[in-house]
């Protein structure tokens, strides 16, 4: 059986990918909201986002709203596909023939 994507399987990255995958394509989520949903620290979230960005699973955009800096994150098409495949592999692990085997 194929092993699910190790990059996504890490708990914090799994939450990040699940949260972003819930949004529509090209829909951005700001860093503060994502931190609140994932329930982690700034540093931890930043590090995991960096890893996901390196794999081209997420896109990060930094801009300003007035004078306030804002960081937003969006799932790329590749990230969405990888997450879909990851979920399919998890379901495959839980299919009856794999459970009995």
């Amino acid at each position, binding site marked *: 059986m194929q092993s699910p994507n190790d990059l996504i399987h890490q708990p914090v990255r799994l939450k990040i990918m*699940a*949260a972003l995958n819930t*949004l529509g394509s090209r829909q951005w989520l700001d860093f503060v909201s994502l931190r609140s949903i994932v329930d982690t620290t700034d540093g931890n979230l930043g590090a995991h986002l960096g890893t996901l960005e390196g794999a081209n699973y997420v896109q990060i955009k930094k801009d300003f709203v007035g004078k306030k800096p804002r960081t937003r994150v969006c799932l790329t098409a590749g990230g969405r596909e990888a997450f879909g495949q990851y979920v399919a592999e998890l379901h495959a692990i839980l299919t009856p023939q794999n459970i009995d085997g």
Partner: protein
Amino acid sequence: MPPSQEEAAQALREISNVQARVAGFQDYRFEAQQLMLWGSLNMAGCILSALLQSHLLLIWGAIALSGVVLGTRMACRSSDAPGIAPRYLLIILSILLFDVILHVLFWPITPRQGGMIVPLFVATLYVIRGAQSRPRYIVLGAALALLCCCAYWFADTHYWWWLAFSWGGTLIVAGCWLRRC
């Protein structure tokens, strides 16, 4: 090495939890904007009612119309869900129709009594919605009903001023609260 069945099940549960959290988060964000809009409009309506008591119909007609136009535009901008504008209009127009029907059925009613219909109806809707899905709406509905009833029972000559804060003010504060979640 592939994860065990227990780990796979745990990961799927985690995904489901995050999806529910995101849905709640988006719902609160969407609602927060609407609460602040309608809170501001209702507060303005109550203050104008206190100042110009002979023009209540005109004031509340203008408030309702502004709310429908601005609220629909805001709903379309903040959500890409299909059919958001018709659904939003259906909800708002149902509330307005409920208000009109109760006025007709129970006429004559005093402006003081009439001013309680929509706040109490909206409070009830929020409690029901909170019981079904998101608990913060129960707090909002309960606070709204309690404060508006206090305005009705205890504010004599300053009824509209009290209602401005207990009706409009509660919606604005609730909007800020939901936006921070």
